[in-house]
């Protein structure tokens, strides 16, 4: 047998971008192949779940798990890979904090099924057939995974050793992580592999003291190319977001939307955004403050929790009644 390590990659609720991001390290992937045998990677390698089930516990050296958890099958795979892996990394924003799939927590299972199996214009479903976890047919019982009401992050499901943030993680950070693992220079468990500062710190734009009278949406102004976007009233999430991307978006005039997740020490990304943005509103008059906020931020969930809904303290909005809209407060 070779002395190579064993590497597994798997995905839960995700778009597949993280799988491609792995290849973003370019020819260094060959060094990965030199160091590891890929035992499981459904996107690229033909391997069976059963063969993973038969492996000894802790026999996989490294598992990179991308994607959030929204079905019982994904939860099963997460538990299985945890059991078989020495080091398990939550790879990318979905596994780390729910990301875009986590926005399903703005609604619920019934509303999602209603849209997917009924309302969409291309759906023809006169008998209103919906997925069932168990269906009796002549040959026996067919089963499907249970679809969750609330999307979970990976660490709400299993123990996670490291986090690699980003939607998707930048190739340089992926390589940093792989190098740390290959050279056995692992940081303490629980570490988020990235920088411990914010996107603002690496953003080249000039900052002044912030005083905001009006929040603007990106289509409302053509931003000054050199000045801080938030100074200009555009909601930029750089203030709460972990550096690691190199401030790609603000550099080219597009506000940070927070894909690299909360900065070190930030538990709830949205709370940090709320706190930071509220502090710089230039008004002491309650009515004017309300107006600035309500007119300037029409979609607080989308602005503050685009990537971290499932990871926030509340994880989801209050359950709804199947109309696809959050319940109106009483």
């Amino acid at each position, binding site marked *: 047998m070779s002395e190579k390590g064993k590497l597994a990659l798997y995905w839960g609720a995700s778009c597949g971008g993280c799988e491609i991001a792995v290849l973003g390290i370019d020819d260094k992937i060959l060094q990965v192949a030199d160091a590891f045998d890929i035992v499981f990677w459904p996107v690229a390698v033909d391997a069976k779940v059963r063969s993973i089930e038969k492996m000894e516990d802790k026999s996989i050296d490294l598992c990179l798990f991308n994607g959030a958890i929204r079905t019982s099958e994904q939860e099963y795979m997460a538990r299985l890979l945890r059991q078989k892996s020495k080091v398990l990394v939550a790879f990318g924003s979905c596994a780390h904090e729910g990301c875009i799939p986590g926005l399903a927590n703005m609604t619920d299972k019934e509303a999602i099924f209603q849209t997917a199996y009924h309302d969409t214009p291309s759906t023809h479903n006169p008998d209103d057939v919906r997925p069932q*976890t168990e269906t009796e047919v002549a040959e026996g019982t067919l089963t499907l995974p249970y679809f969750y009401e609330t999307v979970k992050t990976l660490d709400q499901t299993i123990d996670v050793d490291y986090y690699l943030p980003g939607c998707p993680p930048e190739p340089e950070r992926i390589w940093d992580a792989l190098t740390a693992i290959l050279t056995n220079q692992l940081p303490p468990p629980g570490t988020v592999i990235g920088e411990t500062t914010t996107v603002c710190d690496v953003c080249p734009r000039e900052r002044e003291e912030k005083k905001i009278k009006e929040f603007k949406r990106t289509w409302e102004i053509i931003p000054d190319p050199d000045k801080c976007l938030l100074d200009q009233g555009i909601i930029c999430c750089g203030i709460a977001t972990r550096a690691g991307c190199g401030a790609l978006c603000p550099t080219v005039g597009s506000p940070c939307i927070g894909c690299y997740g909360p900065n070190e020490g930030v538990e709830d990304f949205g709370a940090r955004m709320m706190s930071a943005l509220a502090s710089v509103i230039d008004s002491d008059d309650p009515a004017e403050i309300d107006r600035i*906020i309500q007119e300037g931020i029409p979609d607080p969930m989308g602005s503050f929790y685009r990537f971290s809904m499932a990871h926030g303290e509340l994880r989801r909005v209050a359950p709804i009644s199947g109309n696809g809209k959050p319940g109106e407060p009483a």
Partner: protein
Amino acid sequence: MTEETFQPKIIGFLCNWCSYRAADLAGTARMKYEPNVRIIRVMCSGRVDPSFILKALSMGADGVMIAGCHPGECHYLEQNYKTMRRFSMLKHTLRAMGIEDERVRLQWASAAEGGVLAKAINEMVEQVRSLGPLNWSEHWSENGRIEESIGNLLQEHEEAMEVPA
């Protein structure tokens, strides 16, 4: 047993300089008010990060009260204006999350206003009581369906045909 009235759990973040002293005053003046507020003393209402409120609600609180010095009277000059703005921002977001307005309240109460604080607490307890328990973490429970479904999956794997290596 008679049916008990619902006793809401309310977390109160009270500032050291005004509102906590207001609560003290209410106590020494032997004013009666509802015992449902668990008080946490903070140095300033401006210390109360929105995440504290979200965390309290997620961990079982039915409501949260933030109390501080009146605007213009902050011990730290203007931090309670930040509280005011953060509170407005938080309410805006909580509405989008479907959490009722009455569950989170900002109350100004100076050190001399024991009665104001006691009245506000009574009012809030009554409002939250009529809304009922929040029980937020129940929303994540999936009604116990997870283990059952994983059990089905395992059984299916048992029954599936062996794939030759």
